[in-house]
């Protein structure tokens, strides 16, 4: 923490054994991320981006190599300690949202607090409401995921990732299932959170989305092949203003009826 290195992987590998075949998803990844960074991870399909993010998110363990989270070596962590890290330090956002069905946005966001043992949240409901308001969904709290648009669902997932005040947010293709305008909209929320000091790692296929990050890491065949700062960084909030509003055609149709 003192060094400012929140994430540090050293020669991290991940092998999947499938019968006789060994799939080497990660083949020695060295990645260091300091506090307050906004990293976009890019690369072809199958290059190991998700695998890396899962290792960083303590959802999966590396086969070899070390992973230091906040300067702490995680290799000897127990299952419960991994759970604790996921609960306290990391917020995860998935491409497929992974919200509980038939469960309101509010209850979904409150979920991580059920498993909070730190006692930091005496009023989980209030924390969940605050988190939803933070992503601009204060008025949709009592809707089920099935009643929300894709962008709104991803905001709920973001609110859930944020509710425990994590220092790191990991997002695996959070805009993969969204149209371009909604993608930019969601990216504006990420940028805002990053402004507030949260470290963000985001996997994406789209170069335009990566332009909202501060740093771009490119992977190929399980290793990092390129790592550079973004010099022409864009602001999602500003881009959003110049984009045509998604509501307009709908309004026209409504008038015609």
């Amino acid at each position, binding site marked *: 923490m003192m060094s400012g290195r929140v994430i540090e992987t050293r020669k991290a590998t991940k092998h999947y054994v499938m019968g006789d075949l060994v799939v080497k998803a990660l083949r020695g990844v060295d990645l260091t991320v300091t506090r307050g960074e906004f990293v976009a991870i890019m690369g072809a399909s199958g290059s190991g981006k998700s695998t890396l993010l*899962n290792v960083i998110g303590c*959802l*999966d363990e590396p086969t070899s190599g070390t992973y230091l989270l906040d300067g702490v070596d995680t290799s000897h962590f127990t*299952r*419960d300690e991994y*759970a*604790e890290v*996921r*609960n*306290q330090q990391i917020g*995860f956002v*998935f491409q497929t949202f*992974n*919200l*509980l069905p*038939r*469960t309101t946005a509010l*209850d979904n966001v409150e*979920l*991580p607090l*059920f*498993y*909070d*043992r730190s006692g930091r949240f005496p009023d989980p409901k209030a924390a969940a409401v605050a988190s939803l308001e933070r992503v601009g969904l204060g008025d949709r709290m009592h809707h089920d995921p099935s009643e929300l648009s894709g962008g709104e669902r991803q905001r709920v997932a973001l609110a*859930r990732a944020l509710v*425990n005040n994590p220092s790191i947010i990991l997002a695996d293709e959070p805009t993969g299932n969204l149209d371009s305008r909604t993608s930019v909209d969601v990216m504006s929320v990420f940028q805002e959170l990053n402004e507030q000091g949260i470290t963000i790692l985001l996997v994406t296929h789209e170069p335009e989305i990566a332009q909202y990050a501060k740093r771009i890491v490119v992977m190929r065949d399980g290793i990092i092949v390129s790592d550079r700062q973004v010099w022409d960084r864009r602001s999602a909030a500003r881009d959003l203003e110049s984009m045509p509003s998604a509501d307009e055609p709908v309004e026209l149709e409504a008038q015609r009826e």
Partner: protein
Amino acid sequence: MLWPKRLLTIAFKGLLKNRMRSLLTTLGVIIGVASVIVMVGIGAGAQADVESQISSLGSNMIMVFPGASRHGGASGGAGSYNRLTLDDVDAIREEAVLLSAVSGAVRTGAQVVGGTGDWNTSVMGVSPEYPSIRAWTIQSGEFFDERAVRSRAKVAVLGATVVDELFPNDDPVGQQIRINKTPFRVVGTLKAKGASSFGRDEDDTILVPVTTGLYRLSGGQYINMMFASARSLDESDAAIEEITGILRREHRLNPGEDDDFRIRSQAEFIEMATETQQVMTLLLGAVAAVSLIVGGIGIMNIMLVSVTERTREIGIRLAVGARSSDILIQFLTESVVLSLLGGTIGVALAYVLTTILNSAVGMTPLVNPGIVASAFGFAAAIGVFFGYYPARKAAMLNPIDALRYE
């Protein structure tokens, strides 16, 4: 450990979210528990019923019938030759020490006229000891005495059914009736034994002195059978031997010759009936146990499907920081809540069913607390086991694998 209140909240939310599945799961428990309780209750009730019917037959009763007990050679079957007489009865009355009472019995069908109608019934000639042997009580008037027997008096004691048929409105005691045209005076009535054992209406009877029955009504010299009471149920077998000895001597049977009479005792009936009833209770219990097991398989099926179908949910929970133990306890709590709920409803349903059976069909199932407890416990155990086992499998998964599960 998480707060129990939070665990319960998580479990209840899970259950309410899947109302239909929860209902189906509990249905298995409900049906299983209720059927075991009711079925075993019916068996136990029937057994108690038969036992009380048998004891209403009389007190430590022994019956002696004429005829060979074994069908050897030329014997033409039970009762084909009549070899019991009132002398036999007198001999037993004088000599037997293990008997508290003995009575001959002569049975004739008769047309009875009197009071407001006429009625076809069976008339039994018996001794004054008869009511004590057969556990009859006098409703009104009195039973005839030894003098009436000696004088072949034309007096009668009416069973409750006969009273209802002939004297629905007034007291028959002191009234005149005609049995097969012979006038008799009613001296007493019998207290009703109620719905009769083994399908026969025992109250549909008239009792007269045994001599009157023998010489005035049936006109023979042989009696149909003998009733006796052993001093106690334990002495029943010894009393039977005593009677056998006396009768063989009276009938001048040589050693090695077969008895020309048969003896049955109430103790024997009780034994037989208890045995059949136990078999029946066992059968009913087995049927019910099968239904409980089928119910258990239903629970198991739904639990397995439910946990498999919720693997993604488990993955999501693990991803946001739930520990394996949190997941286990969640599913365990859900299972326990469901099983207890199902068990409770099952017990309530069993209560309703037994009440209905009682009032509508007239059965009186005996609900045994032990059976209630074990049916309840068994169902709960099935619910817990089959909820716990697959949940454990899912909880031990890597979060990513659980999330990827399709």
